[in-house]
């Protein structure tokens, strides 16, 4: 009886403070906050769209926020989600170390977090961490790169943002394969911070210093797009470029004979899966899955590029 009363009272308090959320909860199963990096990169947009669509299908309200890879901004967004009484948070985080604290804060406020794409440095505070098998994917990309290079020649590696585990793991996967071939020489290795603009600028500079390069392997597709634009501008469309992500932009470039290959991360499905696990957890108290889960990546070449759409590969028919 007293519990009911207390619930009623706190329900009143919530009603007073947060009328909008109260209204939303009355109709559905609650609010799911979806926090990702900037939608300028279509990869993150696909995540947000995928998560939002699935959440709505399952009867949740959604709050879509963008942290722009700024840990402070992300921290504020977690506070917003907590204040708005979210029932779950879906997040592609802004740094493996920096994200531990806000995820813990949400946990302490009783809000489970479901992380996608990027891990955090601790387990036991998020309910799920679903990430692409970047190591497996990078090895796929590297094998294709080696074959395209004919196992020899000078090449360049464009790395992602250093604070991001995915930058390191992809590079490790690339080198576990490429370094087996002594005739492949890396003449430059620089971070372009996942950015198309930086990819363009870095490629321009590297090309001036190393006009003899034969290939460029990139930690993601936006950098590959930037590198390819710089190579095109320099009249160097003979250079082999391989990316990672499986964006529609790179798909179109592959089909037009530009960039040679990329590795698809099932970002759309991954985001949906995170929402499904959130729903399962909220209904039953368990996702039935281990916290950290890997999803395999798929090599994209001219053979299957046409089946790629918004980070999902349609079945061959």
């Amino acid at each position: 009886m007293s519990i009911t009363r207390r619930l009623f009272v706190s329900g009143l308090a919530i009603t007073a403070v947060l009328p909008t959320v109260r209204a939303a909860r009355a109709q559905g199963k609650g609010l799911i906050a979806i926090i990702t990096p900037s939608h300028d990169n279509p990869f993150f947009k696909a995540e947000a769209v995928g998560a939002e669509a699935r959440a709505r299908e399952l009867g949740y309200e959604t709050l879509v926020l963008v942290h722009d890879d700024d840990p402070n901004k992300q921290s504020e967004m977690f506070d917003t989600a907590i204040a708005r009484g979210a029932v779950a948070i879906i997040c592609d985080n802004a740094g493996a170390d920096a994200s531990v604290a806000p995820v813990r804060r949400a946990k302490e406020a009783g809000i489970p977090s479901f992380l996608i794409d990027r891990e955090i440095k601790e387990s036991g505070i998020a309910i799920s961490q679903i990430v692409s098998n970047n190591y497996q994917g990078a090895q796929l990309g590297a094998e294709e790169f080696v074959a395209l290079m004919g196992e020899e020649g000078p090449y360049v590696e464009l790395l992602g943002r250093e604070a991001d585990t995915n930058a390191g793991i992809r590079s490790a996967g690339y080198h576990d394969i490429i370094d087996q071939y002594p005739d492949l020489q890396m003449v430059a290795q620089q971070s372009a911070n996942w950015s198309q603009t930086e990819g363009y600028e870095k490629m321009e500079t590297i090309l001036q210093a190393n006009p003899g390069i034969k290939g460029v392997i990139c930690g993601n597709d936006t950098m590959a797009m930037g590198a390819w634009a710089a190579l095109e501008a320099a009249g160097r469309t003979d250079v082999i470029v391989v990316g990672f992500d499986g964006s529609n932009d790179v798909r179109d470039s592959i089909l037009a004979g530009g960039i040679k290959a990329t590795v698809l991360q099932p970002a759309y499905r991954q985001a949906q899966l995170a929402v499904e696990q959130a729903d399962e957890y909220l209904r039953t108290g368990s996702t039935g899955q281990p916290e950290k889960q890997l999803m395999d990546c798929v090599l994209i070449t001219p053979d299957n590029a046409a089946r790629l759409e918004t980070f999902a590969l349609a079945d061959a028919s």
Partner: protein
Amino acid sequence: MRQAILSGALVCVLLPAAACKIVPNPDPNDQSEALASQTDEARMAAYADANWETKVLPVIAEHRVEYDIWRQALSQGLDAAGEAHGLRPEGEANPWNFVVSGTGTVTEAKLDSRAAKMQVDMDGDGAADVVLQLGPIIRGTAMRDAMPFVVFTDFRDQIEFAKLARAMNERASDGLTRPEGDVMGHTVSFTGVFTLRAAGDTPEVVPVEIEMGAAP
């Protein structure tokens, strides 16, 4: 010089305050404190070593299936073979891993490479049915992913987890007596682990045991 030492000392005094960071206490029950100072490679190599005899080999002994029986199961489809004989981590879209032993004939060999390999005909038609990866560089993560006691959540991140895969591959390769010379046409018996993503793929076996047989 003195200035350098002084400012060095100053930095030492100031740094702890500036770089104040909360880290979890190390678990006193294991050697994590000593292990923390090691590189990922060294730590994962030690992990692979420590668990090899006690955990890895027993999993292999328990789940080993004869090649012919495995082939038969596979004719019912990859998932059927997986349900019957396979191992895989939990989670969506994880491929099956198998532990298979068998005897075949070497049809092709590349032994002078860092990624040494032998192609083996298992059914006597002259065409290779499996590839034995002799290493020391071995492709894939089958050795790691076939082990039910290895759970991704227990590892810091994908980087550490990838180093574990590599350490287990290297441990497997280290334990082999690598064949030398001309092995074409020789018989070879093996027990090994592989990942199969599609029923039509050629198994790229990571052997834990090989024994070369008679010359042709």
